[in-house]
């Protein structure tokens, strides 16, 4: 038991690792600040593409979305980071993460936005158009606000996944929180820094996880 505590909950080691892990946390938040808005925007375009009147555009976007839902994000990230240099395109870890996640997140957010827009009745569009609003005005002011409200739990749920996904950046040596914690682990031979990082992820994400569960139950009733 003592050995377990020593291994996983060594306070001294946690305190020593804290500054490193804190720097990692800032990098994690910086990645989130870039990839979440980019993913939301990309997803919106993907959804509009999937709902387009133009058959070619529709099929192309559905293909894009399904392709990137089928590829594991880590495979995509490693391909962008260590495959593209063979084609003469060398990216920094941060840029590689941003590009790989943009592709992956656009696909997932795109599916959610598409479902949301589909859940708004066509009567809304017809009514808005008949008042003289243009097609894009109708989409922006009438359909999208209702669509977002209808799929808000899914949007939050996917955003949790995106935050969790940022930990993959450690694989391409971007010094985010998991990378920092794992560095500290390899120096101290103790899993305590990883436990600390896990604790920080829990503090950030547990409230959101609860919120999603609450939402789901409310919709169920």
């Amino acid at each position: 038991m003592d050995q377990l505590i020593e291994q996983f909950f060594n306070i001294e080691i946690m305190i020593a690792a804290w500054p490193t892990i804190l720097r990692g946390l800032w990098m994690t938040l910086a990645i989130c600040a870039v990839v979440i808005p980019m993913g939301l925007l990309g997803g919106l375009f993907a959804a509009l593409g999937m709902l387009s009147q133009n058959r070619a555009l529709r099929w192309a976007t559905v293909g894009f979305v399904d392709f990137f839902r089928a590829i594991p994000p880590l495979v995509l990230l490693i391909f962008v980071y260590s495959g593209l240099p063979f084609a003469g395109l060398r990216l920094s870890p941060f840029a590689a993460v941003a590009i790989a996640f943009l592709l992956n997140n656009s696909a997932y957010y795109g599916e959610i936005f598409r479902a949301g827009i589909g859940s708004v009745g066509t009567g809304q569009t017809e009514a808005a158009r008949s008042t003289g609003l243009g097609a894009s005005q109708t989409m922006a002011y009438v359909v999208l606000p209702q669509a977002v409200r209808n799929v808000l739990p899914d949007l939050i749920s996917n955003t949790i996944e995106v935050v969790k996904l940022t930990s993959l950046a450690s694989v391409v040596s971007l010094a985010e929180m998991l990378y920092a914690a794992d560095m500290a682990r390899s120096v101290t031979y103790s899993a305590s820094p990883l436990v600390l990082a896990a604790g920080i992820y829990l503090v950030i994400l547990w409230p959101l996880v609860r919120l999603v569960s609450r939402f789901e139950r409310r919709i169920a009733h």
Partner: protein
Amino acid sequence: METEALSGLERFAQTFLNWEVLVKYAPSILAGVGVTVWLSVLIILVGMTLGTLLACLRAYRVGPLSFLIVVFADVFRALPPLVVILLVFFGLPNAGIYLSAFMVLFVVLTLILAAFAEEILWAGITSVDKGQWEAARSTGLGFTQTLGYVILPQAMRLAIPPLTNRAIAITKMTALGTVIGVPDILNQATTAQSFSGNASPLLLAALAYVLLFLPFVIMSRWLERRYSWKKA
């Protein structure tokens, strides 16, 4: 000008579609496909069963037990899988427990799938109308029988599309095994890439994943339409 463009294209093909490299490393990537498929099947079978079991246990509404189930489901839904994988892989040996990388990946991803499956099924169970419980009980079915024969089948219907999506997302995470040395598709491909100094194995790996998972992604699209409630 034209010859330069051609040589550029040739160079691209040499790097990403190098036939010799592809032929040489295809068998190891195929072996990786075996590992990925085998892991995925195990994770889905055990994870789904465990998740269903937990959701059913929660239906008995035994306070402390329900609380533990909620904590389990919350923690495994909130933690990034790679954090848990590294924690278990590097932490347990120092605590005297030795698991192979394959076992670590299997256990962690199974628990994560079980956590998500429990939440999805629980949402399904609570969405079934109370009258269904009352009607079933009044015909003389016991609590467990009602749950198993009446409630769960209806909960399943609502749960199938999100369960499918979640199962795809989590089996895709088998690629994370690369980080701890599980010889899956991605691991074989990165090894082959560093041996050959050529990006073709990575492209082949990406293709293998698409071939493996695309049918399920398309199926999930179909399931969503099939099981969606009719719009008023």
